[in-house]
């Protein structure tokens, strides 16, 4: 049980909270990378998935991208890019490319499924009312697909947070650094303390995005009836 005391000692040590290896600095770096990569993944994945879903094409692509994203280990892509020549190597570009690449599949697949899951009769009715293609997209399909779209973004955010921590294994910064440094120093207190900080913040990210989906869901704002059952999200592991 000595490790519990060590963990407590590490968490309460002012040193753990100061300087370039302190929790606040690493947290800012971690969240910055997560946010930037999530933004990039949304910029690429959302328009593509919405368009594919709207025209009803590329379903195989949208789903296969998800399967490929699951089969390629994050650590493998990160290691390959770090050993690759400039502008890759141990650079910010490597981080952004690797993180964004793994955040796109959940966004793409879930948004596409959400778009295709919109009742065809509702779309037909909208067309019958004289709505143009873009009106159907903006006023019918997108609002009805919001739940699945946000599910994809939430899964991507949680997964990004996890991927950024894994990147510490190949020498990048962020909160994972605390754990890898702890292993190097054979300091169990630091390893467990760092892991607790990472796990707690990952849960926080999940909760924030859950709340965000509730706020953004147009069906919840429109009336208080329970939203119809959404399809199972398509998620890779952290």
């Amino acid at each position, binding site marked *: 049980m000595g490790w519990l005391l060590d963990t407590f000692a590490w968490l309460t040590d002012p040193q753990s909270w100061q300087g370039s290896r302190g929790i606040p600095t690493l947290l800012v770096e971690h969240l910055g990378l997560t946010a930037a990569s999530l933004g990039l993944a949304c910029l690429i994945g959302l328009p593509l998935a919405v368009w594919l879903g709207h025209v009803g094409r590329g379903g195989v692509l949208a789903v296969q991208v998800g399967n490929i994203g699951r089969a390629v280990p994050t650590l493998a892509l990160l290691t390959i890019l770090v050993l690759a020549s400039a502008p890759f190597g141990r650079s910010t570009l490597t981080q952004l490319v690797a993180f964004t690449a793994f955040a796109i599949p959940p966004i793409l697949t879930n948004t596409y499924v959400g778009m295709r899951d919109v009742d065809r009769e509702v779309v037909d009715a909208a067309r019958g009312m004289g709505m143009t293609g873009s009106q159907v997209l903006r006023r019918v399909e997108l609002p009805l697909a919001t739940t699945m779209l946000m599910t994809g973004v939430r899964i991507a955010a949680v997964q990004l947070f996890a991927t950024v921590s894994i990147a510490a294994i190949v020498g990048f910064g962020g909160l994972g650094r605390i754990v890898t440094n702890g292993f190097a120093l054979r300091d169990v207190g630091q390893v467990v303390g760092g892991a607790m900080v990472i796990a707690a913040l*990952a849960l926080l990210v999940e909760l924030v995005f859950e709340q965000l989906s509730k706020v953004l869901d147009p069906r919840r704002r429109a009336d208080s009836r329970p939203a119809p059952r959404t399809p199972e999200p398509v998620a890779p592991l952290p």
Partner: protein
Amino acid sequence: MTGLVGVHAATITDNCLTRNDWLCWEYVTTRSADLLDGTREHLYITVVSVLLGVVVAVPLAVLARRWRRARPLTLGVSTVLYTVPSLAMFALLLPVFGLSAATVITGLVLYSLTILVRNFLTGLDNVDEEVRDAARGMGFGRGRMLWRVEVPLALPAAFAGLRVATVSTVALTTVGTIVGFGGLGDLLTRGLRSDFKAEVLTASVLCVLLAVVFDLLLLGAQRLATPWQRGRT
């Protein structure tokens, strides 16, 4: 000067290993023992983790279905587990299992559980109530209903979950390298430390190959286990 170049050319053979190429057959043939060891450990960790995950997930899913109050608890716990990043998961298990394969396997069992329980439950939920009524009318008891009616009908969703869990576990095993038991992941970190490109790329390709082979094997098993689905999708 020219003499020196001559000496070099004579002593260092020029092949893909000395050039540090990404693709190097020489590496595969000369270090096949390393690759086999890594693959063997990777296979062992993946297979044990998924099998244990199934063994724990089946009773949990049946329990969550029978006992309504266990359901939100099961789903809540699995969401929390699923959110914990793998690096943190292995680190949190370190005090319990130390630097051992058990740390990695336990973490991976917990992850595969979250997927498997959800999918098993979805499968059981999808069984038509009229089918259950028909079985009851034929005099099926609870046990026979479960094994002869509900489980077979839940198989497609269960296999979908099994495939996702297995492919993800193959990829996640690499992170086990943090405690020194990452299968092919150990080759990744070792190749990174020594700037050995062929080692890194070969290990990466093998990881993806393992995932694809497992996925195809499970797809085949699913076809065999659900003959009535053949021809549909």
